[in-house]
C-alpha cells in the first residue's frame, strides 16, 4: 500500500487516530469468525466528515476500505480481506437523540446495542434486536449484518427496527436514506442497505424504532430426556399458533458446558432444555405460559420450571447468552454454523446433525433459536491440526447442505461475509448473484468497499485460515 495513505490519514485524523505498526494491527486481523485478514492500517473517524475524508483517501490511492463495529461478527464481515484501511466506529459512539414520545432514537454507529436499551429503560422502552453479543456489538454492526437474537422470534430482526440511515457512499457522497416518518416515497433503500454486510456504504447515523417494554414477562425452562421430545415440542408450539417472545434450545452436551461455567441452574443430566419466554399483557401472558407448559408436558417434558423472579430469569438468560463462551473453554477452536430450516423439519435435522457428527468423528453441540428454525451447531476441533480442520469444514458443509435440502438457508443472522461466500451458489443461480453484484457495483463501482465479501470468489475450502479462539468469547 502507498505509504502516503498513512500520511494523509494522519493529516486528516491526527496521528493518534491511525494505527499501522504490525503489533497494533494484530488486534484488528480477526473478528468472531474463524477467519484472519490483516488490514494495512486502521483509521478511527470521530464524525461523518472524517468518514468522508477517509473515503476520499481510499479513492485517491485506490485502497480497500472496510467498516467495523466491535468485531463480534461471525462471518468475517468486518475483516479487511484484501488489506487496506479498516475503519472502526468506536469513536462515533454517541446517542444523538431520543424521542420517547415517537419511540425513536438516533445513534452513531459505534453505540453498543445494549447501551441503547439502557439509555431508554427509564422511559419504559428498549431496542428490540438482542444479539447474544449485545453487550459488545454495535448498532452499526447490527445494521450491516441485519442481526437477530433470541427475541427476534416475536419482535423481528434489525431491519424491522431501522427507519433511517445516514450513509457515506464509496464515492464519498453523504446520503440520507429513509425517514423517521413511515413509508418514505420511493424504493426501500433502508431495506436494501440494512444487511448489505458493509458492501454498499459506510453507515454514519441510524434512526431506530424503540419498543415499549412488556407489562409482564414469564420465562419457562422445559427439561427433556430426549432431543426428539424437545424438538417435537417446538414443532407443536409453532403449529398451534402460539408465538412465544423467545424459544431457545440447548442440548445436553451444551448444558453441561454451560453449567461448568455459568451455573445457570440447567439440569446436567437431561438431553435438552427449551428456554421459552412469553410477554405482553398480564392476562395474555398467564394463559400463554400455561398453554406452552401444557404442550411441553404433552411431549414428555420431565419438568417445566417457571422463573420465580427477575433474578432467576436473568440467570437462565445468562446461561443461554454465555453458552458460546462456555464452549470456548472446551476446545482450542470451534466452528459455529448458522443454517436455517423450516420449523417442521427440526426433529429430522437434529437427528441428521448428530449422524453427520458421528460420521466425521466430532461431537456437535446444539444451542439455537429453535422457534425460528435457526440452528447453531457447534463443531469443536483443533485448528492447529490441518486434517481436523478439513474434517470440520466438511462436517459443516454437510450440515449446511442438509439445511438447504430441507428448504432452508445458509445463514439466519450471522451473514455470509467471507465465510459462506463459497456456499452462495447452493442457493442462488449465477443470474441471481450477478444481479446482486450489479446492485453492489451501482453503489460501490470501484469495489473498494469491503471487497471479497458475500459473493463467491475462486477460493477453495482449504484456503480458509483459522486461529485458536480466546477462552470465554461471547457469540451468536
Amino acid at each position: 500500500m502507498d505509504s502516503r495513505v498513512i500520511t494523509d490519514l494522519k493529516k486528516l485524523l491526527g496521528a493518534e487516530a491511525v494505527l499501522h505498526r504490525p503489533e497494533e494491527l494484530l488486534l484488528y486481523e480477526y473478528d468472531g469468525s474463524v477467519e484472519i485478514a490483516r488490514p494495512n492500517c486502521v483509521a478511527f473517524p470521530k464524525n461523518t466528515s472524517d468518514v468522508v475524508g477517509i473515503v476520499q483517501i481510499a479513492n485517491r490511492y485506490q485502497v480497500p476500505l472496510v467498516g467495523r463495529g466491535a468485531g463480534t461478527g461471525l462471518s468475517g464481515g468486518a475483516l479487511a480481506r484484501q488489506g487496506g484501511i479498516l475503519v472502526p466506529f468506536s469513536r462515533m459512539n454517541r446517542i444523538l437523540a431520543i424521542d420517547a414520545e415517537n419511540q425513536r432514537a438516533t445513534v452513531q454507529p459505534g453505540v453498543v446495542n445494549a447501551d441503547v436499551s439502557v439509555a431508554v429503560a427509564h422511559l419504559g422502552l428498549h431496542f428490540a434486536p438482542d444479539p447474544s453479543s449485545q453487550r459488545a456489538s454495535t448498532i452499526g454492526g447490527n445494521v450491516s449484518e441485519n442481526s437477530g437474537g433470541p427475541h427476534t422470534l416475536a419482535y423481528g430482526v434489525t431491519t424491522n427496527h431501522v427507519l433511517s440511515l445516514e450513509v457515506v457512499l464509496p464515492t464519498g457522497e453523504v446520503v440520507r436514506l429513509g425517514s423517521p416518518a413511515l413509508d418514505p416515497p420511493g424504493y426501500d433503500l433502508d431495506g436494501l442497505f440494512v444487511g448489505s454486510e458493509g458492501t454498499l456504504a459506510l453507515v454514519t447515523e441510524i434512526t431506530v424504532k424503540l419498543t415499549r417494554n412488556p407489562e409482564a414477562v414469564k420465562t419457562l425452562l422445559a427439561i427433556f430426556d430426549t432431543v426428539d421430545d424437545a424438538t417435537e415440542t417446538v414443532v407443536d408450539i409453532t403449529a398451534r399458533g402460539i408465538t412465544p417472545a423467545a424459544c431457545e434450545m440447548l442440548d445436553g452436551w451444551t448444558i453441561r458446558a454451560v453449567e461448568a461455567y455459568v451455573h445457570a441452574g440447567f439440569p446436567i443430566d437431561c438431553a435438552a432444555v427449551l428456554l421459552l419466554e412469553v410477554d405482553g399483557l398480564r392476562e395474555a401472558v398467564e394463559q400463554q405460559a400455561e398453554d406452552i407448559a401444557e404442550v411441553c408436558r404433552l411431549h414428555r417434558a420431565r419438568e417445566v420450571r417457571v422463573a420465580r423472579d427477575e433474578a432467576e430469569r436473568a440467570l437462565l438468560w445468562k446461561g443461554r447468552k454465555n453458552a458460546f463462551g462456555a464452549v470456548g473453554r472446551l476446545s482450542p477452536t470451534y466452528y459455529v454454523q448458522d443454517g436455517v430450516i423450516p420449523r417442521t423439519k427440526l426433529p429430522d435435522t437434529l437427528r441428521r446433525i448428530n449422524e453427520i457428527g458421528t460420521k466425521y468423528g466430532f461431537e456437535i453441540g446444539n444451542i439455537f433459536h429453535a422457534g425460528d428454525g435457526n440452528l447453531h451447531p457447534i463443531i469443536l476441533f483443533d485448528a492447529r491440526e490441518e486434517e481436523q480442520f478439513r474434517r470440520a469444514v466438511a462436517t459443516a458443509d454437510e450440515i449446511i447442505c442438509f439445511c438447504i435440502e430441507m428448504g432452508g438457508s445458509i445463514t439466519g443472522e450471522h451473514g455470509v461475509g467471507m465465510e459462506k461466500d463459497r456456499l452462495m451458489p447452493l442457493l442462488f443461480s449465477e443470474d441471481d448473484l450477478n444481479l446482486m453484484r450489479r446492485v453492489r457495483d451501482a453503489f460501490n463501482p470501484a469495489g473498494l468497499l469491503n471487497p471479497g465479501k458475500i459473493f463467491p470468489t475462486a477460493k477453495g475450502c482449504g484456503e480458509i485460515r483459522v486461529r485458536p479462539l480466546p477462552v470465554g468469547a461471547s457469540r451468536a
Partner: protein
Amino acid sequence: MSTAGATVGSRLADIVGPQHVITDSAPLAAFAVDDKTPAVAVRPQSTAEISEVVKFAAKEHLAVIATGARTKLGIGLPPRQYDIALDMTRLDHVVAYDPGDLTLSVEAGIPLHKLGGILAEHRQFLPLGVPYQSQTTIGGTIASGVDSPLRQHYGTARDYMLGMEFVTGEGIASKSGGRVVKNVTGYDIHKLMIGALGTLGVITRINFKTFPMPAASRAFVATFQTVERACGMRNRLSQSPLAPMTLELFSPGAADLFSSEAASRIEPNPMPQNVISGTRWSFTTGFAGNENALKRYETDLRKMAEECGAVDLAVLVAPQVAPAFARKREFVPIALSSSPAATILKICVVPMKMSEALKAAGQAAEANHLPWVAMARGVGVIYFAMLPKGRNDETKRQSALASNQIFAACAALGGHATIPWCPAEWKDVLKVWGLDRPDFAQMQKLKTVFDPLAVLSPGRFVGGI
C-alpha cells in the same frame, strides 16, 4: 385492432399461445393506465413465458406493465410508454403452504380473497387488510405498496415477506430471500419491489410468513370534540401496555362517507349505527385476545377515553366488528367513489405530529373550498381525501394549491406526502410523488441495474423513473 397491435400480437402469440393474446380494442380498454391503452395484452402462464415476453419487449423497445385485478393502476404518474399489458391472473397458484411452519409461497396473480380462504382453513391469515380486498391480487397488493389497518400490530408486508421471485427488465428470472422465517443470505432485493409499481421487476412469486388468527376480537370507538383530543387518546394508548391490532382516527366527514350508498356497494354489511360521529373526531381501535385480555382492553380504553375527554364511547362486538373493519380497510375506494375528482393524499409524519398535520391539511383544503375526509392511522400515516363536487379546471386548480400547501406543511413537520390517487388528467399539475427527495439519485441507480432499457412501467414512479 391496430396494425402495430396485430404484428406484436402475433409475435407474442408464439410465446403464450394465441388464445392468451388480446388485441381487440374493447377488452384492451380495461387495461388502460391513466387513459393510455396498450396495443396488446397477454396472459402468460409461467415465469418462463414472462421472461420471453419481457425479452421480446426489450428487443423491440416496447414498454410492459404487469397487471393483476387492475384496481390500483391509477397510482403513480402516467406511463411514458405502454405497449404490452402483462395480465398476471393465470399465475394464481399456491406454490407451497406449510401451515405447521406458518410459511407460504404463492404466485403473484392469486386473488387475496382466495388465498384468505385457503389460510382460514388452518385458522391462519396474512395481515394484508388492504383496499379492494374482494378483487385485488397479492402481486398487485405488493407492487402498489398499499397498507392495512393491521399494520398497527403486524407491520407492513416488508416485515413478513420472506422472499420473492421476479423477472427483471432484461427478462432475467431472478430471486432473493428464501422461504424460512429468518434469513440474511444475500441482498434483500424483494424489499425494493414493495410499492415500486413494477418498475424494477415483474413479481412472479412471493413467500410470506403467515399468522395464527387471534382467538377473538372487538373494537372500541370514542368520539372527541377536537382533533387534538382524539390524537391525545392515541398518544395515551401508545404509552400504555395495550397492543391493539388497529388504530385509526376519522374526521367528522367519515360518518357520512361510511353510510353513503358508495360505501354500502363496497361493503354491503351495514355500518353499526351511531358509532362514529358526524360532528366529532372518532378514535377507533380493534383488539384481540382471550376473554380476560379483551375485558382488560375494554376497561383500560374506557378509562383512558374518559381521561382524554371523550364525548361518548362504544364497544363493538363480534357481528359489528367485521363491517366496521371493512370500512376502515376500504376507505380509499369508498372515498374515490364519492366524488368525481377525489384526490387522496398519503401524509406521513411521526405520530406526535399527526394532530398538526391533520389541522394543516384541513385548513389547506378549506382555504381552497374543498370538502375533505381524513383517516389517520396510529402509526403516523394519514389518508387525506379531498372530495370536490366537480371535475373541472377550477377544482383542479384548487386541489393543486391545497396539495402544495400540504406538502410544505408536511415537510415543515419533518414528514412527507404523496398523491396516490387523483384524476389522471390532473397529473400534469399535481405533484403525484410529492416534493423532490434527497435519495432520488440512489433510486435511479437501482432502476439502471434492474431495468436498463426502461421496459417496465416506464415513467410511473418517483421522479418519473
